[in-house]
């Protein structure tokens, strides 16, 4: 079974490290981390991810900017993106802990591995069909 390729774009090094380890330990994913949002498009072009986990608040280009560049890129425009943000509150989230806004699935930090996985699978399944 071939592993899904996941790119994490987030400036927080310890966080991205631990997310990578946890996702890879499930045995289902091949994860690459990019901590500098300015490099996100180049890294993504080289890595060809099946899905991108994108932090919203980052120095320089923020998650919204990165996403726009992905959408403008012929190779990346169809890659599903999950926005992970610290600025969502309970009141703004649906029962399943995520919300669809501005064309993205958004989830709130801190996210549990279980929830992150189901969110990723949902998005990947959405692309497959």
């Amino acid at each position, binding site marked *: 079974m071939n592993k899904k390729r996941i790119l994490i774009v987030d400036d927080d090094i310890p966080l991205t490290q631990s997310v990578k380890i946890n996702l890879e*330990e499930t045995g289902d994913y091949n994860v690459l981390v990019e901590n500098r949002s300015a490099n996100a498009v180049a890294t993504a072009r080289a890595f060809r991810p099946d899905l991108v986990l994108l932090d919203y608040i980052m120095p320089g280009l923020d998650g919204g900017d990165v996403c726009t560049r992905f959408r403008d890129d012929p190779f990346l425009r169809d890659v599903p993106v999950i926005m992970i943000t610290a600025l969502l*509150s309970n*009141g*703004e989230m649906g029962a399943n802990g995520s919300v669809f806004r501005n064309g993205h699935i958004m989830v709130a930090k801190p996210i549990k591995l279980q929830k992150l996985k189901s969110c990723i699978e949902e998005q990947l399944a959405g692309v497959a069909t």
Partner: protein
Amino acid sequence: MKPPNDNPSSGSFSLESSRPKVPTRILCVEDNDGDFRLFQLHLGDSPLKPRPSLQRARTLSEAAELISSASDQSGPFDLIVLDLSLPDSAGPATYFRLRNLAPETAIVILSGTTDHELSLEMVQHGAQDYLPKDTLSGDLLGRSLLYALERQRVRMGMKKLNDQLQRTTCELQTTQMHLIQAEKLESLGRLAAGVAHEVKNPLGVLQMGVDYFSNKTATLGGNAELILANMQEAITRADTIIHDMLDFSRSDQLKMNLCNVNELMGSSLRMVHHELLKNKITIIKTLATNLPNVRVDGAKLEQVLINIIMNAAQAMPSGGPLLVSTFSAEFSESSHDEGSRDLERLRSGDEVIVLEVRDHGSGIPEEILPRIFEPFFTTKPTGEGTGLGLAVARRIVELHRGRLQMTNMTSPTGVRARIVLQPDFSLSPQAAPSIPQAEVPTVQFI
């Protein structure tokens, strides 16, 4: 204050403002026929213009009747002339009783030879004057009565001013409280966004750590599972506070939809179903049918309901009934929502939709009642309460131009929480999607 030149003979003092255009209405309370006739005579001689209208009472109870029927029909008497010794009352008590019966009327004491001293004392207690019966004359009477009327007028004016001053002071204090509260909320909002970003990433790292080791408890052995559970709880607790704080900074962004209040109540109850079950809470629902819809941010309103329901559950540690209901009503101000800022929208008498949650807990102690909406005010142990629940709840409800009313109940004790919203008639209740009636049992035990 000088006597007018054109009328020197009157010897009386008069003021334009107090000169009555309609006859002064006088009540004479005097049991002695001779004394009354004498008074009547002197009054006729007095320079009071136009001629005053005079009524007489022989006893205090007769006076009471006349006073009450007068104030019902033609307004209170302008002046009462009082003999302190009556068949049914004597001495100072006579004056004090009458003062109570007619708080706004000038009272002049008619004193016999024996009770001058007592009369003087009554003046010190607010009687306008005393008149010795033996040396009474038309002039003296006229002047005394005019003075009495004037003094009472000034006194009432002062009382009115004083009342106004007190009201204004009270309003100022309330406004100041609101301002402080609003400022507190605003800085909290700004803080929340900053804190959220700074704290959520570290929390995310901790969460990933817990998830990492959770798969390996078998190899870790010992107390690993317990420690991980405690860590998970700590992360959740910290996260909850930040989420609540964020709700301040973001709660002004509402996603309004037409909602059915019974559905809101139902979905909120479902979300806390397990908690309630665990706490042995029995839900008793009384949901009105055919209520108009409300235009609200459903998710936010659910959050408000959940906060209120959880408070109610926490107030009943050994379980009990939780009465939830929805109904329409005429809006009326409750005494405990002084903190509400958006006063211009809901008015007494408006038709409103009410979502109510009542518990049979011990109620909220009176002395903390004014503080329950303050952010971070809690009486609960650390970890159980953040003190943000009601603060968030009220903010959300007020952003909907509604009210959140918390009232203590007696017999049985408990708290009644009401979310008061304005109905939206743009869709009839029939046309709006609503739960089929069969799915909304009136009484449900869980």
